[in-house]
């Protein structure tokens, strides 16, 4: 199915691939979610006024994909030079976004790579997380490896095998086996680790 640019279209369940033209709006015809059993390809910006379930999604030319609900993707999310704003929960196997990912209600995936920033209003559960700029999490972080080029802020607990942050990391305690921070590392809660390596300043605060 093909949606022409700047159109608003209602979809229920689609058994085939979906191409969405630039600056289109799509929404569920019935129920809360659009279900696409094939791939969804966005030309540029798109507003999705419902939750979206798809096999995979991609964006080739940059733009902003705005989902007013959950985004549940069976395989990959690839938004080259793009932004992904999800008001609800984001789930996928692999996520690769050039600029920004916002997940209002947390995210779960096997791996996520974001060039710019990652913001999560809930928990983050991912085996491998790579963020070029800033990562901010209101809930807990659980995974294997987390790398952030700039600044990391986690309000909940952090449970990781390895944490690498180039600049500043502020967490609220947890269990992290290997911690490497180039600049400043702050933990405001009970922290268990094996290795802590900080280039500048480490502040470890414990509220007993």
């Amino acid at each position, binding site marked *: 199915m093909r949606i022409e640019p700047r159109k608003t279209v209602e979809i229920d369940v689609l058994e085939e691939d979906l191409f969405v033209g630039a600056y289109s709006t799509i929404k569920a015809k019935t129920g809360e979610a659009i279900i696409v059993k094939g791939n969804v390809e966005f030309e540029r910006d798109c507003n999705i006024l419902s939750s979206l379930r798809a096999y995979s999604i991609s964006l080739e030319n940059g733009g902003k994909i705005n989902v007013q609900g959950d985004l549940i993707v069976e395989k990959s999310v690839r938004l080259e030079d793009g932004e992904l704003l999800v008001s609800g929960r984001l789930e996928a196997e692999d996520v690769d976004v050039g600029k920004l990912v916002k997940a209002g209600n947390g995210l779960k995936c096997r791996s996520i790579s974001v060039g710019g920033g990652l913001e999560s209003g809930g928990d983050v559960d991912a085996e491998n997380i790579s963020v070029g700029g800033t990562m901010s999490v209101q809930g807990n972080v659980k995974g294997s490896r987390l790398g952030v080029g700039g600044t990391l802020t986690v309000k909940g607990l952090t449970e990781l095998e390895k944490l690498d942050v180039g600049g500043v990391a502020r967490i609220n305690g947890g269990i992290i086996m290997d911690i490497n921070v180039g600049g400043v590392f702050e933990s405001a809660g009970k922290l268990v680790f*094996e290795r802590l390596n*900080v280039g500048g300043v480490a502040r*470890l*605060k*414990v509220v007993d």
Partner: protein
Amino acid sequence: MGIKGTHVSVGGVLNVDGSMEVDEVRVGGTVEVKGFFKAKKVSVGGRLKVDENASVEDRLEVGGVVKIGGELKAGMVEAGGALEADACFADGVKVGGKVETRRGCRSKTFEIGRKGRVIGPVVAEYVKIGRDASVEDVYAGRLELLENSSARNVYAREAYLKHGCRVSGELLYVEKLELERLTQINSRKVEKLPEPPV
């Protein structure tokens, strides 16, 4: 226990608002621990400050000042500047500048550097007081007071005092006393030395 880990390496400042238990700590600048501190091996370039007791199983090396609010128990303690603690119990203590304890410092070996100052009693099998340094009461197996150093009271099995040394109180020894010229002391050979305070 608040902070628990194995290896800590920090280039600048490590600030722990609570207690900490780790195997090895290496910090280029300053370490501050608000609670108690337990480690196997510690190396700090600048200053180590612990508000409560500190225990370092193996070696504590600090370039500048060690300040422990409670008791320090350690293997070897080396501080370039000063060591302050309520009491210190160690295998060895070697400090360049100043040692200050309220209850005393007990170790197998104790050395204070040239022009150093020791406040509080020192109890050790071997004590070496550097040139021009001063110490209060010393309880030693073997004591060496180097040139122009001074002590308040000395209780030693053997004592070797270089020239210019002063003992303002008494010097009691059991086996041997060697004095160089110009050494001013009030010495007495005894059968048994008084019990050390720590």
